């Protein structure tokens, strides 16, 4: 992190209801200073509502918003000093790029010289100094996005809020700007809060991800933690893909063993008993060559397969565990795939993770 101090934000048991409709239910969240946090969820999950409550455009029905420990719940947006990049950027079409970027300084009544210097610095930061006198309509989508960033950062805001900043761009440009955004965050060292429905964007940009569904904050944690140790079925399914195996668990020496029909699946982790749901990532399963063995071995036949460039995606039908999806790099596949071909699947004890069903309520404490 850079030397410039960011600010810490915290949401305490925040809810937002519109009549009978619950947009956000009892969400608590801590964003540490200088962190890049992403609110991730499908549309209608409440992620934008949370961002709007942080920005001050939406008043929470219950709960508090704190900035560095100070209650700002009642503060109107214009007095919060947060920078914001709006969905579609919301650049002022009647102003030039420089005037757009100068806007936050103009409302703060900065002197002309100081204003010009800061605008120039902000445009330098996003490499748009040559476009200062253009109108937004004369810029490409990516350039507009950078103007929006410069405008949001020019007045040294306490926080930078980003509402789906990359969603309007095409795939290639999006990847490029992801890199830039990440570099920018490192350079300015401020606290960024980003909203997206794109899981790849969330994984590659964020220090922390908060996953939302149906107004509930389901899990908060570092991208690796969320991917490797999802707390619920929804998290496992929304971040990447997953196989789910349900059965009766009982404790054993290395963790627990799950029984389903004639099959036994061993898994590591805290011993547990009773009905249990396991999440197993397709890329953690191997096709075992003749004679090889693993902690878990399951026999089946290839039901379907496709070549996806980075490898093969197989669906293997097993008598006890149903269809299992497997994703393998081409060099790790010992046979040439064909429908109906008998195969043996194997995975290590620690490859599968026990996850909770989504009860529609947040998992206490999450895994963060």
């Amino acid at each position, binding site marked *: 992190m850079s030397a410039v101090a960011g600010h810490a934000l915290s949401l305490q048991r925040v809810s937002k209801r519109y009549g009978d409709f619950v947009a956000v239910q009892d969400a608590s969240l801590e964003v540490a200073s200088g962190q890049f946090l992403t609110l991730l969820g499908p549309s209608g999950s409440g992620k934008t509502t949370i961002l709007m409550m942080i920005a001050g*455009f*939406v*008043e929470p029905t219950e709960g508090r918003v704190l900035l560095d420990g100070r209650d700002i719940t*009642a503060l*109107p947006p214009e007095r919060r000093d947060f920078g914001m990049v709006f969905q579609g950027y919301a650049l002022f079409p009647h102003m030039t790029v420089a005037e757009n970027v100068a806007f936050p300084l103009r409302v703060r009544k900065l002197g002309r010289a100081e204003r010009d210097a800061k605008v120039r610095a902000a445009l330098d930061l996003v490499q748009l100094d040559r476009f200062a006198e253009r109108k937004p309509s004369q810029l490409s989508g990516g350039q507009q996005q950078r103007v929006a960033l410069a405008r949001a950062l020019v007045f040294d805001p306490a926080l930078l809020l980003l509402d789906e900043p990359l969603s309007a761009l095409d795939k290639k440009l999006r990847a490029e700007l992801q890199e830039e955004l990440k570099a920018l965050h490192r350079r300015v060292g401020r606290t960024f809060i980003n909203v997206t429905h794109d899981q790849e964007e969330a994984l590659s940009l964020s220090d922390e991800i908060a996953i939302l569904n149906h107004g509930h904050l389901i899990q908060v944690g570092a991208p690796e933690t969320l991917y490797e140790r999802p707390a619920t079925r929804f998290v496992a399914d929304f971040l990447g893909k997953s196989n789910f195996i349900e059965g009766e668990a009982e404790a054993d020496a290395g963790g627990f063993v799950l029984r389903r029909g004639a099959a036994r699946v061993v898994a590591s982790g805290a011993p547990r008993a009773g009905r249990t749901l396991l999440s197993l990532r397709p890329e953690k399963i191997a096709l075992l060559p003749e004679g090889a063995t693993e902690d878990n071995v399951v026999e089946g036949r290839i039901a379907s397969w496709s070549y996806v460039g980075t490898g093969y995606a197989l669906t293997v039908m097993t008598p006890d565990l149903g269809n299992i999806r497997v994703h393998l790099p081409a060099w790790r596949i010992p046979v040439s795939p064909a429908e109906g071909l008998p195969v043996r699947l194997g995975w290590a004890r620690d490859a599968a993770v026990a996850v909770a069903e989504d009860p529609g309520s947040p998992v206490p404490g999450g895994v963060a």
Partner: protein
Amino acid sequence: MTPKGRHAAGWWALIIPALLLMTAFYIAPILQVLAISVTEPQPGLGNYERLFTSESVQRVIGTTLRIGVITTAIALLLGYVLAYRIAMSGPKAQRWWLLAVLVPLWISVLVRAFAWVTLLRRQGLVNQGLLATGVIDQPLALVWNELGIVIGMVHYMVPYAVLPMLSSMREIDPRVLTAARGLGAGRIRTFLRVFLPLSLPGLIAAGVLVFIFSLGFYITPALLGGGKTLMVAEWIKLQILDLIRWGLGAMMATVLVVAILATLAVLSRLVNLRRLFGAGS
């Protein structure tokens, strides 16, 4: 994301001045009319009894309704034809047609009445022309009667009829018409079975607008009626400024407002009223 509570106060402050002025100098005078109608000359509903007992009151209402209906019917017919022609033209031609509708709309009603008088009176240009060419040997009575009123009022109302109808015709997807023709419907069948029903909301909206405007119309009937054919508005002016019968005049003015608001209320169930007032600009 509409502001609530204290965030909304600033925005309400923008509304308040207009609301205050409107209440103090529009709503209050209108309510005053209502008050006068039930207090003068004596308190009570005596003025309203005249609606059922006075033949002259009934005659004025009858005349107004008759002229209103005739005007509305002719204005709708001409307006529909014109709107249809406009809707079917290319964008450039449409601008010119539209200008031909908008210019009369905004030209002073007095100027237009004056022009009609110049044309239609006994020594007017029309009569002179017809006499000179020998078509007639006696000047025709074209103005200062009901005919004159209708000519002038239709002239005023056609633009108001065109605008709502045009906006509803523009919403009709032209591919529907092509499809109807493609399915074997003739030109006339396509119009009657497809276009006309689709443009009906605009037709109704235009009818309401023109009818309620003609009920309370003052200047054109007063100038082109020549004092012989009285419509409600002129009758009210007569009661109040010339005969100083405030109660009676206020009663009729109230009835006029009630009739118009009732018409609007009934028809708001049939058509979207936004169409009326969105199209006028």
